[in-house]
């Protein structure tokens, strides 16, 4: 596998940022897009566009087939049992809101508990918080340890007879910790508790096998997987999608509409009301092809090797402190520099074309726990190289120089 050849597939790297080559270390926020994905959006709108599922004309039939073809590709990529377990949404956020809303409506009552963790992104906390207000449910937090991990023991500690669902990240977007989802699912199911996995960071970087993980719900963000924005995926076991009520009402999700009653459409239409992000879904098929062409094992190995290199380099740089030290780390490396606020770091790095993210990364609960208001975060994609970490390190040294640090 030649990373430089893979990198050439991403046209963004042909551009200069502040007169420098772009060092893109913000893929946990959103990944860059390969030419094939960009072209697919253009081609679809230029040559093949029609709305799907409504009309009988040639273009509508062809577009519908393309759209459904992506569903099949996703099913295969994540090893779901049935293609109707794949629901397209506007993002992972909507996928989690869909579950919180419909599961909450049908199965939760006052006093029931949802167990999340201190690692969660706001999008896997706020939707459950809504149920505190509307249903009187409780949200409990499994504790993060000093290494930035959540252990199966800390989850066990917070499970009670009232726990109905565990909503948990696959890979922390701040500490990079990879959580033992399969074990958590086994534990949860032995107590009749459902599991929702926030797979925003997991999906681009880990092997996805829904039948092996056995979770009930898995939320995916397509724009972090080299795909278009405005698109997410909810994987849900078929029995839940059949049993839960619809989320949004509108065209496309109905079977029959009368003045005195409405029946809802079959899966997957039941959860895809209105005109969907058609071009994005069709282009996302190219993202799956791109990932399959490289192979997930190659992706994992490349990113692991890179991460080990980056960790060593930053550890050697005095005044840099890594945030979290998980035994199993994904493509995320957060750090602080004693005496320089992360926003100042990000501004100075940007001048050298080094794009990182600074702030609380939508994880205020975690930052409060760690006793810091913000961190700087370097996150990887398949296009990153060791040279990117070298550039990051030399830009960090420039920060230290400007701030008169040693």
């Amino acid at each position, binding site marked *: 596998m030649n990373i430089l050849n893979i990198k050439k597939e991403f046209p963004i790297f042909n551009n200069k940022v502040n007169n420098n080559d772009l060092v893109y270390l913000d893929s946990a926020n959103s990944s860059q897009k390969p030419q094939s994905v960009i072209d697919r959006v253009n081609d679809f709108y230029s040559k093949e566009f029609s709305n799907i599922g409504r009309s009988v004309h040639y273009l509508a039939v062809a577009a519908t087939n393309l759209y459904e073809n992506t569903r099949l590709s996703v099913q295969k990529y994540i090893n779901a049992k049935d293609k109707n377990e794949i629901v397209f949404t506007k993002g992972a956020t909507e996928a989690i809101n869909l579950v919180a809303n419909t599961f909450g409506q049908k199965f939760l009552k006052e006093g029931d508990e949802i167990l999340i963790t201190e690692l969660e992104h706001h999008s896997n906390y706020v939707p459950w918080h809504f149920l505190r207000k509307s249903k009187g449910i409780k949200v409990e937090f499994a504790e993060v340890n000093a290494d930035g991990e959540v252990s199966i023991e800390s989850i066990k500690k917070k499970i009670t007879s009232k726990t109905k669902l565990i909503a948990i990240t696959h890979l922390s977007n701040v500490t990079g910790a990879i959580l033992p989802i399969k074990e958590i699912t086994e534990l949860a199911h032995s107590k009749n508790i459902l599991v929702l996995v926030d797979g925003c960071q997991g999906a681009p970087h880990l092997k996805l096998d829904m039948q092996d993980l056995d979770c009930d719900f898995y939320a995916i963000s397509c724009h972090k997987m080299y795909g278009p924005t405005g698109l997410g995926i909810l994987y849900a076991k078929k029995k839940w999608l059949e049993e839960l009520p619809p989320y949004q009402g509108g065209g496309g999700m109905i079977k029959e509409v009368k003045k005195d009653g409405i029946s809802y459409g079959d899966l997957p239409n039941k959860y895809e009301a209105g005109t969907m992000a058609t071009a994005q879904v069709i282009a996302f098929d190219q993202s799956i092809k791109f990932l399959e062409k490289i192979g997930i094992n190659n992706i994992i190995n490349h990113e692991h090797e890179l991460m080990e290199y980056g960790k060593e380099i930053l550890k050697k740089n005095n005044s840099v402190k890594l945030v979290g030290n998980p035994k199993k780390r994904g493509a995320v490396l957060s750090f602080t520099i004693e*005496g320089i606020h992360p926003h100042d770091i990000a501004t100075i790095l940007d*001048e050298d074309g080094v794009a990182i993210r600074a*702030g*609380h990364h939508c994880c*205020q609960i975690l930052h409060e726990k760690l006793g810091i208001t913000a961190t700087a975060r370097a996150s990887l994609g398949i296009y990153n190289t060791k040279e990117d970490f070298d550039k990051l390190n030399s830009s960090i040294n420039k920060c230290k120089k400007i*701030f008169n640090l040693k």
Partner: protein
Amino acid sequence: MNTKELYQEIILEHGKNPRNLRKTDNFNKDAKGHNPLCGDNVHVYIKLNEKKKVEDISFEGSGCAISMASASIMTSLVKGKEENEIKEIINDFLGMIKINPELKSKNLNDDEKTKLMCLSGVKQYPMRVKCATLSWHTLISAIDNKKEEINTEKFD
């Protein structure tokens, strides 16, 4: 403009050793400010005497070098000035940090203007303007006795 010029010595110095970073005893006005994008917080306290003159001003909070330096310089400048003078200075500063090439305020002497102009580099970094203005918006809120917390997302 480069970051070396943005982070002038005076900003670094005020950022590292902020003046008036404490809580005023017997303050009679205060307000909180928050930047939801980065999580930075500031709490400004002022003690006004009968003549509406600022006897003491202080702030608590944490943030980047630019926000800490801005709050530090701001509190040093307004001490001893009257409420209406301060409001005029704030308007002048906010105008400068966004578009105006210089400060026009009659309530600032040349030395004070020079100090404030050290923050002017921020206008080249649009994402960072809010870091520089947070404490100033919070001071207006304190003077006006507004109860609602200042939120940088509500400003242009």
